[in-house]
């Protein structure tokens, strides 16, 4: 008989091994899914995980895309991971990402067509503030009124989506766009555009920001008292209270940082790859970032690797869609399964699986 026995402390080895095993299991399950869909599983898996990076045919286009997609994922996920560690669940990053983009676009459109070096930094500040402010709504409701931050932050995603639609079709619509929805092309406005820094790498300022955010979070978690408080509040809330951690301040800080990071990610996206505010501007990065944060074990460096991997599934998914006629939703299912396997395997780092034979069990307990 199998029995689970709680480990005194989580297993370090399994902690590192589970993400890898989860990815392998997802590949197998994904392969089965592709077979059911009538595709060759080996070809599909190769197309998703190998060809975007190494095939001669596609790599030239898709390799730079890796950093384009991984940038916002890592930036958002690293912000979320701080709150997740403390047991504060901001799951509305998608909304903060949209509002950040809207605020940044508002700054750019307000200055248009004046050229100045100040526009771009101002947009970054506006994006971060927008995301921060949107995250402050659930944070303040939680600290002032004890309202569940999970539900509020999630419901605000729908509000942000409607706001985005109102902006794209109404108050931000391009006056020279012949009535079509969508704002001016911010990517073509020199002072506001977020271009590639080195041609052909896909690295734009969002990638740089993600790198800085990872460093910031790493140092905070490892070397700063705030990082200690975050860990403590997550692992032993009562002990944290005795140690003088103010729960309200912690909520405001964790939500604020994650919101600001998500808002910045929105800013870099709207000024870069997305080019303008459109109705379908948001591509679900805010939700995928939750998977990235878990896959990276809420560890900044792990998140970088996880972000690159999930960016790969986005690109490979597009490739498979194009080459094998695989439905776009298949990749979403794939990402969902990854999170399932990850959560399921966590049992191995927290528990020991013991094989108990009924008659032997009595002698073993002596």
């Amino acid at each position, binding site marked *: 008989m199998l029995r689970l026995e*709680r480990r005194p402390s989580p297993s370090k080895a399994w902690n590192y091994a589970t993400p890898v095993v989860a990815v392998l299991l997802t590949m197998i399950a994904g392969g089965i899914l592709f077979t059911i869909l009538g595709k060759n599983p080996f070809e599909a898996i190769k197309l998703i995980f190998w060809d975007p990076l190494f095939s001669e045919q596609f790599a030239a286009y898709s390799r730079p895309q890796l950093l384009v997609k991984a940038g916002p994922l890592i930036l958002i996920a690293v912000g979320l991971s701080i709150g997740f560690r403390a047991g504060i*669940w901001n799951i509305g990053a998608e909304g903060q990402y949209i509002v950040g983009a809207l605020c940044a676009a508002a700054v750019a459109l307000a200055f248009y067509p004046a050229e100045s070096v100040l526009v771009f930094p101002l947009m970054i500040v506006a994006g971060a503030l927008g995301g921060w402010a949107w995250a402050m709504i659930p944070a303040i409701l939680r600290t002032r*009124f004890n309202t569940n931050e999970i*539900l509020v932050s999630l419901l605000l995603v729908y509000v942000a989506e409607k706001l985005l639609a*109102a902006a794209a079709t109404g108050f931000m619509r391009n006056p020279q766009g012949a009535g079509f929805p969508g704002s001016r092309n911010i990517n073509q406005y020199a002072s506001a555009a977020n271009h590639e820094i080195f041609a052909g790498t896909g690295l734009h300022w969002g990638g740089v920001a993600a790198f800085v955010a990872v460093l910031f979070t790493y140092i905070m978690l490892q070397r700063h008292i705030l990082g200690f408080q975050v860990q403590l509040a997550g692992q032993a809330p009562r002990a944290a209270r005795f140690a003088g951690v103010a729960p309200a301040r912690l909520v405001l800080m964790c939500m604020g940082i994650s919101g600001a990071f998500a808002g910045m990610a929105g800013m870099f996206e709207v000024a870069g790859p997305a080019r303008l505010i459109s109705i379908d501007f948001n591509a679900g990065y805010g939700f995928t970032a*939750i998977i990235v944060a878990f896959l990276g074990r809420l560890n900044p460096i792990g998140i970088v690797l996880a972000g690159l991997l999930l960016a790969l599934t986005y690109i490979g998914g597009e490739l498979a869609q194009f080459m094998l006629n695989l439905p776009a939703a298949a990749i979403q299912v794939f990402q*969902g399964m990854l999170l399932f396997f990850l*959560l399921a395997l966590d049992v191995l780092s927290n528990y020991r699986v013991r094989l108990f034979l009924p008659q032997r069990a009595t002698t073993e307990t002596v």
Partner: protein
Amino acid sequence: MDFGSINPVVLIASLMVAATPILLAAIGELVVEKAGVLNLGVEGMMIVGAVSGFAAAVTTGSPILGMLAAIVAGAAVSLIFALLTQVLMANQVASGLALTLFGLGFSALLGQSYVGIVPPRTEKLNFGFLSDLPVVGRILFGHDILVYVSLFLVAAVWYWLNYTRGGRVLRAVGENHDSAHALGYKVKRVRILAILFGGACAGLGGAYLSLVRVPQWTEGMTAGAGWIALALVVFASWKPWRVLAGAYLFGGIMVLQLNLQAAGYRIPVEYLAMSPYIITILVLVVMSSNRTRRTLAAPGSLGRSFHAAG
């Protein structure tokens, strides 16, 4: 503003229809939470129910078979959640989110070939002359079977939780799983069954959306209904009758908002469409302000995982 063009009888009759999906999902989630489990996957289970119900109804030509399929599908995906949280002791918040993300993708995959199809019509129940009565006929006797099923479920859940042994065991498990375990109740078995019930209800609610309310299949068509259902449980302080009141209140807001959109008031459509979400948030704030978990009446073990030591 001029509300004169909105007929109150039609409004009440249509708000009952608008409220039924969230009512079904919320009453299921109430039972789950009463057992001490927080399943944030309602949105995912609803949308899987919506697509499976739609597909089954279109294939067989029978909306009733579609709804049965949705019940099975909702329960089946909730089984994943049950496995993760009850057997493998995974974090409930993360597992629920995973279920929602997976459900949204999975439903889009299943529903690909069903976009743009009209489902078989769900007929209204025939009450004979009763349906022709003025005012009352339209409100009480003018609906399809699921509206009555949802009302029956509210009453049944209320009775079962308060007046039967099974209901009391379930509440004991939700209030304090260690004590319940010490008394010899099977904590995990109770919770897994509750999760399956919640999944079945959410699936049925989703099918009502795709077969009656909309009726069509589009990707992501639940549009947050599952999350509103979750909020509704908090709003109702975990009491079945208040879930009903809350659901009809939200149904009213949704119908009113749609009527205002159709009437072409000068407020842009997007801002009106925001209102159900904003009002949900406001209600949550009012309900939870300055109250502790205790006075809110949240089940004591809500969201905590249970592992019997030794």
